[in-house]
């Protein structure tokens, strides 16, 4: 530890850390637009400039290491003036269409202009004529609104190992985009939406499905069905002003009904179903010398990543569809049949913490007879917007119970919302499938938590099953390189595209911080601790669907409706 002086006060700092880190720890507010915790500092936006005695120029605190006895002024008139000028310059060529911008309420540029007290247009720059890229089913890119902070570029490359976008051009023509200014749809973009989550402006937003959903909700002919992912109920309250850490499962069901959804189902139900299928597949592969390690397929960004970057490992992917697609298929087959509804009169909407789910729902393999299994996907943010539009507040909703049987879940299915959850649920049921008994201790601590890489060995009556859990595609890439190079000890790998899993997905509230992700994860564990049905194979609704419709796991009908296969994919990368 060393001593430094900030605003005439003695402050302790860790040796060699960046000044901004010290300031944040001390609760001293210095604005920044380009800083990402845990990633290399870029110093792009210069908003974090401070005055350091002995330095003729202002220094960017995000990329300036502390040294003993330095004297810092964070809010000197000179620093404040510089910050204000930076904002004014950023605004000089900004489209100024805030009233029409999706990020109106969450735009950091707008908030900082307000914070710095920008009240007049001092600089009038030439506007650029960049085109909007609407080619992607998940992400809309509007380079005209970009402030070139580079957060999207860094998260795409350093966290996700995708690097679909980078700075192109120079000077006033500089923008962020894929190679050859092609559309995102032909780039290596995996649609994860982490770029949206970190974007300070409206330059990156989701491809909204709200208009289509509103149309369906207003169509008296249509039975509009909703499914909500495990991460939604532990997050949604945050968008209605609550602090992270409140589960609103029942209120969410009520909210969806009030919005006009005719049936409300739970994707955690099909997560349980996934476990039955995937668990059986794993046991089958282990017993019959199938391709190992088997890898999970719940996360559509990850699937696209394997298709384009590790096509040689496609046989390692489980053939199971994701829970969204399993439930989508069941709604338009099993449920339609059971209720005597024409499947073409069902409009199936899923509420997901994810932008890649929009891409997944549009994959041609997930439709039958010209009908998509899932018709529209709303992100957590879009659902909150829909509710606001109807003046519905989550806090006013009396909790209700979801529809049966596709709305009942075990807590194992619920755990799918966080990294390690699929693994924990799968291990519980695989143990049962192999031994006929349940684990004494259901909690598998080794695969819990927010670490990007977790490994464990589970003793299933002498059969040592080695598993790995990774989240963030860079972590996945490192592991896959090991597998490619011949690592043989692993049986089962869980991969979630976003760091920490779906609770930190690209469809979640903008500027989610690590504390919020921790709180959401804790909620998932609390639910698992407090409820009684904690095993996918003990979910009565799952048993019922097998009895009435599917037969047994890996049956012919299961294969038709719940499984798929993936092919190598050519992209510009």
């Amino acid at each position: 530890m060393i001593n430094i002086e900030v605003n005439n006060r003695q402050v302790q700092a860790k040796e060699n850390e960046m000044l901004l880190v010290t300031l944040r720890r001390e609760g001293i507010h210095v604005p920044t637009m380009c800083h990402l915790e845990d990633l290399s500092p870029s110093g792009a936006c210069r908003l974090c400039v401070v005055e350091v005695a002995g330095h003729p120029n202002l220094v960017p605190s995000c990329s300036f290491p502390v040294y003993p006895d330095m004297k810092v002024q964070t809010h000197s008139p000179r620093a404040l003036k510089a910050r204000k000028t930076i904002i004014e310059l950023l605004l000089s060529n900004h489209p100024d269409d805030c009233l029409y911008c999706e990020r109106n309420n969450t735009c950091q540029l707008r908030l900082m202009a307000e914070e710095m007290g920008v009240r007049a247009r001092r600089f009038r720059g030439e506007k650029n004529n960049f085109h909007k890229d609407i080619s992607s089913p998940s992400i809309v890119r509007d380079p005209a609104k970009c402030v070139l902070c580079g957060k999207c570029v860094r998260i795409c490359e350093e966290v996700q190992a995708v690097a679909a976008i980078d700075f192109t051009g120079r000077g006033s023509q500089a923008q962020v985009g894929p190679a050859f200014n092609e559309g995102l749809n032909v780039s290596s973009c995996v649609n994860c939406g982490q770029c949206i989550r970190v974007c300070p402006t409206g330059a990156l937003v989701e491809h909204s499905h709200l208009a289509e959903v509103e149309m369906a909700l207003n169509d008296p002919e249509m039975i509009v069905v909703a499914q909500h992912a495990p991460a939604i109920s532990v997050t949604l309250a945050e968008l209605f002003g609550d602090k992270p850490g409140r589960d609103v499962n029942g209120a969410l069901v009520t909210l969806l009904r009030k919005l006009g959804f005719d049936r409300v189902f739970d994707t955690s139900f099909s997560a349980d179903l996934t476990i039955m299928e995937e668990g059986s597949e794993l046991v089958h592969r282990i017993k019959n010398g199938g391709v190992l390690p088997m890898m999970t397929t719940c996360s559509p960004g990850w699937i696209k990543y394997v298709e384009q970057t590790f096509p040689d490992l496609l046989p390692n992917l489980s053939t199971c569809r994701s829970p969204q697609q399993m439930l989508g298929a069941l709604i338009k087959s099993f449920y339609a049949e059971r209720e005597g509804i024409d499947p073409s009169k069902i409009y199936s909407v899923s509420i997901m913490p994810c932008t890649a789910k929009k891409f997944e729902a549009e994959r041609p393999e997930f439709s039958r007879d010209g009908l998509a299994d899932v018709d529209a996907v709303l992100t957590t943010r879009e659902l909150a917007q829909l509710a606001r539009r109807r003046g519905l507040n989550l806090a006013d909703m009396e909790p209700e119970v979801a529809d049966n049987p596709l709305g009942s879940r075990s807590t194992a299915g619920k755990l799918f919302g966080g990294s390690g959850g699929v693994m924990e649920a799968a291990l519980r049921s695989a143990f049962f499938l192999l031994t006929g008994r349940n684990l004494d201790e259901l909690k598998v601590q080794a695969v819990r938590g927010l670490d990007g890489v977790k490994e464990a060995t589970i003793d299933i009556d002498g059969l040592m099953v080695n598993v790995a859990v990774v989240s963030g595609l860079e972590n996945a890439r490192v592991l896959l390189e090991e597998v490619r190079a011949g690592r043989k000890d692993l049986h089962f790998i869980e991969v979630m595209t976003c760091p920490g899993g779906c609770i930190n997905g690209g469809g979640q509230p903008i500027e989610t911080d690590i504390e919020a992700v921790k709180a959401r994860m804790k909620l998932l564990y609390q639910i698992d601790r407090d409820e009684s049905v904690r095993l996918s194979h003990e979910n009565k609704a799952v048993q019922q669907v097998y009895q009435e419709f599917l037969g047994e796991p890996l049956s012919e009908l299961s294969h038709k409706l719940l499984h798929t296969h993936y092919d190598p994919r050519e992209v510009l990368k």
Partner: protein
Amino acid sequence: MSAPLTDIQPILDRYPNASRDALIPLLQDVQEVQGFISKETVVSIGKHLNLPASKIYGVATFYNQFRFQPLGRYHVQICRGTACHVKGSATIFETLKRELGIEAGETARDGQFSLEVVACLGACGLAPLICVNGKFHGNVTGDSVRKILRAYRKEAKKEATNE
């Protein structure tokens, strides 16, 4: 126009076990042989250097020297150096863009003309100056530029009928 591209493998072979610092020399070598940087090139350079295509395109677009379309039959270079600027090259540049219907760094759809901005051609006595396929045309005006382009168009047509 779309002549098959020369194989760039021999060029890549000149940079064994290379990393990202070989990127710019590699791009220069490829452009020297192929006349421009194609998508295929970017992908193969990316594989060779283990770099994403977006990164290579980002670096290449930072520098004026790289082009992403094949050169036209007539490659027009306009000098925007100090002397030419003083003598009114900005207007000449505008005339060229309008006449050819392309921006700097682009090639017209019919493949006849491409346009490039250069900093100085080293013949400031002739300012303002353009250079077509290595031939200098000095002291140009808006009118004379149009005349020069017309002459090349005629030449191209004649060659086409003779072929």
